[in-house]
């Protein structure tokens, strides 16, 4: 029974499901069914989000957390935007085209877009804004994404050209990164919050709140419905959820799986539960003993009981993973690779073949994610059945990322979702990747990865990505049990929410997408 309940929980659209059953109930009572609600204007939307600090600023290069991203898209726009079902659409860029080898790109900018002070946006603004993140002394989180850019120049007032050192068919996706917000050329005072976005800055108290009012001249006709938006940083999960239940916030981001069930049963609130690309691997350093042995890596992978971990650690909020980092909803996901199952016999077989008979020390900490230690304990139990002897070493959360991650041979890891398959694989699995946290380096993989990146034909590209996922699944050093879900708590008066891309809160663009019913 529990299992079935969890099955329902894991459905991506439970809230819609509940709502449609409620609507069906109305029908049987003979009441007219309300037509798919048109957006309503007005009201004051309050969002409870996370990741704020007293050091926050509105400088786009300083954005790091989801809360910062929500602030960014409340005030600003990027060149491209990720819409429903991960579809990429133009935002301040109207259209784009590339050379066949995807090294030269042209982005045509939307005309007639104005900043909050009425100035018109042109290519000079776009170039200035992107260049903020480039260069030697940039400390921006987007610096890495932009390193392949060798030249950025204006092509008239309403177009820019981008030249890359090697082909990248995903460039329009990269331009949708949440750091790459467009502000006026020459801006040095970021506190003014001058952008082109749906709301205009009224008040910003770093680490506490941001208040913004509707931009009367907003260029998107069907967006920005409420009069005022207030974004509150509430890092304590319990108080964020309490505020949602008492109605002090309309939306609470990042609801933990344990609280999600409670929220769903409270009156007036529901949860938005959608698949995401974050994952929580066990990481094995593949270039040194004992994990330089492929059989030992397989023994670990067969020792994971994925269903049990998803069920017990994540309360069912997530989807099964198959030892590679590309989630099922990604267009390049290789669906035909058979799901690896928990199999103590196979684990024992590979363990024996590997010749390893010692004890594996698994370094873990809940700083990676709230259930890391629980997952390690479950793994310890299931691994023992195949004869694999695991000792759990709990590391302090402070300094885990600098002292344990990428240093110890066997650890609990954590990856947030990446917007594209290429970024994920280039960041964590390419031989020269600075965060290759499994120390897994294969020349054949690198070559294929570069091929896939520059390939503009979707089917050919998909075939290459299939091979890449297969290589990681079979040989790689990450045992990946599940992908996370994005879970937001949403009050019933909030309408128009839909998931988009890998981030919570409607891809962090919730402020311009939802409206409030009276």
């Amino acid at each position: 029974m529990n299992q079935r309940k969890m099955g329902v929980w894991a459905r991506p659209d439970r809230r819609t499901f509940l709502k449609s059953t409620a609507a069906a109930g109305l029908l049987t009572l003979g009441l007219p069914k309300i037509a798919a609600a048109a957006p309503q204007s007005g009201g004051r939307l309050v969002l409870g989000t996370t990741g704020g600090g007293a050091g926050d600023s509105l400088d786009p290069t300083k954005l790091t957390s989801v809360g910062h991203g929500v602030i960014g898209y409340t005030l600003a726009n990027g060149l491209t935007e990720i819409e429903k079902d991960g579809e990429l659409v133009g935002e301040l860029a109207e259209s784009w085209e590339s050379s066949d080898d995807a090294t030269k790109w042209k982005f045509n900018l939307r005309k007639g877009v104005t900043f909050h002070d009425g100035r018109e946006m042109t290519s000079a603004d776009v170039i200035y804004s992107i260049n903020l993140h480039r260069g030697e002394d940039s400390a921006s989180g987007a610096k890495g994404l932009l390193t392949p850019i060798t030249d950025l120049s204006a092509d008239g007032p309403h177009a820019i050209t981008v030249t890359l050192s090697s082909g990248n068919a995903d460039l329009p996706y990269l331009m949708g990164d949440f750091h790459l917000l467009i502000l006026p050329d020459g801006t040095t005072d970021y506190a003014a919050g001058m952008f082109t976005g749906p709301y205009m800055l009224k008040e910003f108290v770093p680490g506490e709140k941001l208040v913004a009012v509707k931009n009367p001249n907003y260029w998107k006709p069907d967006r920005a419905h409420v009069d005022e938006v207030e974004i509150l940083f509430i890092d304590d999960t319990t108080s964020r959820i309490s505020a949602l239940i008492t109605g002090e916030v309309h939306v609470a981001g990042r609801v933990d799986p344990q609280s999600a069930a409670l929220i769903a049963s409270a009156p007036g609130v529901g949860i938005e539960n959608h698949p995401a690309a974050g994952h929580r691997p066990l990481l094995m350093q593949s270039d040194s003993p004992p994990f330089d042995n492929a059989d030992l890596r397989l023994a670990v992978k067969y020792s994971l009981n994925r269903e049990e971990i998803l069920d017990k650690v994540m309360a069912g909020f997530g989807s099964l993973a198959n030892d590679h980092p590309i989630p099922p909803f990604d267009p390049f996901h290789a669906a035909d690779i058979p799901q690896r199952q928990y199999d103590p016999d196979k684990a024992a077989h590979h363990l024996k073949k590997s010749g390893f008979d010692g004890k594996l020390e698994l370094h873990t900490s809940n700083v990676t994610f709230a259930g890391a230690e629980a997952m390690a304990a479950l793994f310890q139990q299931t691994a023992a059945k195949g004869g694999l002897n695991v000792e759990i070493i709990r590391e302090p959360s402070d300094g885990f990322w600098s002292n344990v991650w990428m240093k110890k041979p066997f650890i609990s890891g954590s990856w947030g979702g990446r917007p594209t398959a290429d970024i994920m694989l280039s960041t964590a699995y390419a031989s020269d990747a600075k965060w290759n946290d499994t120390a897994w380096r294969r020349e054949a993989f690198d070559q294929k990865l570069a091929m896939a990146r520059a390939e503009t034909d979707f089917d050919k590209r998909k075939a290459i990505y299939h091979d890449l996922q297969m290589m990681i699944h079979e040989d790689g050093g990450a045992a990946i049990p599940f992908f996370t879900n994005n879970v937001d708590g949403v009050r019933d008066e909030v309408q128009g929410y839909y998931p988009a891309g890998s981030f919570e809160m409607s891809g962090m663009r919730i402020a311009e997408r939802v409206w409030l019913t009276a």
Partner: protein
Amino acid sequence: MGGASVTTLVLKRLVSGLVTLFLVSLMVFVGTEILPGDVAEAILGQQATPDAVQALRDKLDLDRPAIERYGLWLWDFAHGDLGQSLASGREVSDLIAGRLGNTLFLALTAAIIAIPVSVGLGLLAALYEDKLADKSITISTLIFVSTPDFLIGYLLLLWGAVTLGWFPALSRISDSMSFIEQLHAIALPCLTLALVVSAHTMRLTRAAILSVMNQPYIEMAELKGATRQRIILYHAFPNALAPVLNIVMLTLAYLIVGVVVVEAVFNYSGMGRLMIDAVSKRDMPLVQACGLIFASVYVALNLTADILSLLANPRRRRPK
């Protein structure tokens, strides 16, 4: 003559207070230095590229030796410059200004409720020692003293905000709110703090009075036929005033310094949250400033307690 000794005492205390503050600043600095992790990494988050981290390290002068950074900070501090936050580049004094006010507001409101109530309850418990009133007061305060403050906070949140809906779950105050609205907003954290400190204060008050009750002059008063009420109020309480004042000052200090957890539970924007944030970002100038403010509060309140107890009890002014 008594006045002179008070002045010397105050001067002595002020000097030792300064030495204490210096030692505190040294310890806070060493503490932030030996924490694992790095300012640049903490600011940029786990997903930052090594290039970006190095760029930020250069910008913040983090590659200079620790002793040099401490010396520079101390020099500026001695000249009244609290410095700039490493994480935001903003003036530390700006960051602290509003939040210190918020913390003081919450702490003083809690103190105004908690101190008279708990001292009164302590008196009552002493008056009816081992009677029903004493036992019930002692047991109920014991319950609060042994419950962690975050649990009391969450229980009050559940009861006062979620179930009854009388008070907000997020304690947010702003200048545009009236005083009554502000009190309403901080009701739950204030009550949490009052419950947490009342237990200590009440128990210490009771113990202080009862220890005076064993003195010979109390026995004398009993023998002359004074009622227990009169003995406690006129003979024991004035003599117990010095320890009680100490307790009150310590309570006040705890309220100001110890609000960290309560601020997190109610998302109250005070010094506690600022300091947590600063520690997690390894923002040394900000941690130093918070640490020194907290330490100064402790030193100042202890000094006040000493002076007040001198004034309250003339015998303490004479050297033995």
